[in-house]
């Protein structure tokens, strides 16, 4: 009988745990610790196992990100950047650590850390350490465009990426697309180069984008002519034909698809017609 006395202790386990939690407190998910803050510190303790430690730190990064995102009541992601830096410092060729690490850092809160500038820094480090990786540069260009609204930097990085051996042709196309909103001249040069060097669908795509740029240029020219008309007459033209009558344009233009431009006499602004194949909501 005495051999079963230990069973009396079983109910004590939850009791002791409850008392312990009351004294010490349950573990706060937001509270994390990293005792070694740089890759070189970790490397000093694990000579010859850099890749293994990079893997472990990457797993910890993923877990930390998921834990903060899914469970922390007020996620702050403070350890995210140091963990990514340690991982990539231990294994500078860990491509996905740069790419996903940057996503974790850049996504707006609460889905991510909401620190796109840091995400870009991580990708820039990746681009330095992986000179042959067009994928890291592809991400970097996209991040400049999406998170920082900097189409110039985005296009520069993508064009740089497109010159790497094995890079897909569409990186240059993407650069051209990014520039269409802010720097149509540079965008036209990219599409012109694709038109001259490409073939088949690449060439057709380049023609299409050049036509969109032509349409945007014509639209802007009409809007500018309407503004000049107002300067002379104190009002915007009621119809585009008045611009011809006033000698400001030679003829009422149509876009490269042959569709007439829309015109708003209240604001004096011309627009590519929604029915046109050249219409793109993002450029209106």
């Amino acid at each position, binding site marked *: 009988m005495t051999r079963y006395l230990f069973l009396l202790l079983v109910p004590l386990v939850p009791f002791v745990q409850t008392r312990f939690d009351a004294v010490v407190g349950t573990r706060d998910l937001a509270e994390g610790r990293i005792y070694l803050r740089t890759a070189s510190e970790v490397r000093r303790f694990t000579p*010859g196992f*850099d*890749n*293994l430690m990079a893997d472990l730190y990457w*797993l910890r990064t*993923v877990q930390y990100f998921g834990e903060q995102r899914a469970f922390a009541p007020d996620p702050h992601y403070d350890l995210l950047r140091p963990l990514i830096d340690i991982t990539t410092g231990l294994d500078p060729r860990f491509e*996905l650590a740069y790419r996903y690490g940057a996503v974790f850092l850049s996504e707006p809160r609460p889905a991510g850390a909401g620190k796109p500038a840091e995400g870009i820094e991580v990708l820039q480090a990746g681009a330095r350490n992986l000179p042959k990786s067009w994928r890291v540069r592809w991400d970097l260009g996209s991040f400049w465009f999406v998170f920082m609204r900097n189409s110039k930097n985005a296009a520069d990085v993508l064009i740089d990426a497109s010159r790497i051996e094995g890079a897909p042709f569409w990186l240059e196309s993407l650069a051209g697309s990014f520039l269409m909103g802010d720097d149509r001249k540079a965008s036209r040069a990219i599409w012109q180069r694709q038109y001259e060097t490409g073939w088949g669908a690449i060439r057709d795509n380049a023609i299409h984008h050049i036509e969109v740029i032509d349409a945007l240029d014509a639209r802007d020219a009409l809007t500018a002519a309407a503004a000049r008309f107002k300067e002379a007459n104190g009002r915007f033209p009621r119809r585009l034909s008045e611009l011809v009558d006033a000698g400001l344009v030679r003829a009422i233009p149509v876009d490269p698809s042959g569709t007439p431009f829309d015109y708003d006499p209240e604001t004096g602004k011309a627009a590519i017609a929604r029915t046109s194949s050249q219409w793109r909501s993002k450029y209106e």
Partner: protein
Amino acid sequence: MSGLKRIVAVAANTFRETVRERVLYNLVFFAVLMTASSLLLGNLSIRQDEKIVKDLGLASMDIFGTFIALFIGVGLISKEIERRSLYPLLAKPLTRSEFLLGKFAGLCFTLFVNIGLMSIGLIVTLLATHHRADPALLKAIYPIFLGLILVVAVALFFSSVASSSLLATLWTIAVVVAGRFSDVIRNMRQVSEVPDWLVTALYWAVPNFRNFDVKNAVVYGDPVPVVALAWMTAYAIVYSAVLLGAARLAFGSRDLH
């Protein structure tokens, strides 16, 4: 019986003896378990399962192989002395050098078999995760094995010199750890006032286990030149020969009565 036959007999006996060691099975089990755990860890890593399987598999071989070489290696001589099982052996027509070489060869063969088992574990894990059993992994596994041979030589040397297996274990651990920090030793002159000649002497004296570390290069598919493998092999042979020679000297002059 010729000298070579006597060495082979001791080696075979050492192999039989070491494969009966419980610590060996524990370590091999943990090595295979660590490799297999990459099946789970790979899933947590976001599309990096192949890299993690290879990194973990090779690191397991290196870490657990070193433990096996170290903990069994130090017991090869000192335990024989402590248990007094050495005396009847040396009473037979067997020189101390033959005994030492046989012990060394026996444990090296045990390690060879264990590395083979761990490699099979790694290949099975790779196949289970739908990846190719990359033959280039052998370019990392072979240097790991060379490093383990050197650990056995270090362990055997201290086992011959030290008065107890505990002391031999501590000295061997110290040298193996120092050898893994050989790059720090080489760079010492940049951060301290230590004279160059002393740094160089220390760098040459401590067995350089970093020579055998090409795991990262192999995992990333970098070429490992045959000439580099050849120099690694030469280093392992020369250094092990020096240690075995010193062990023979110490063991030969040791008063066992």
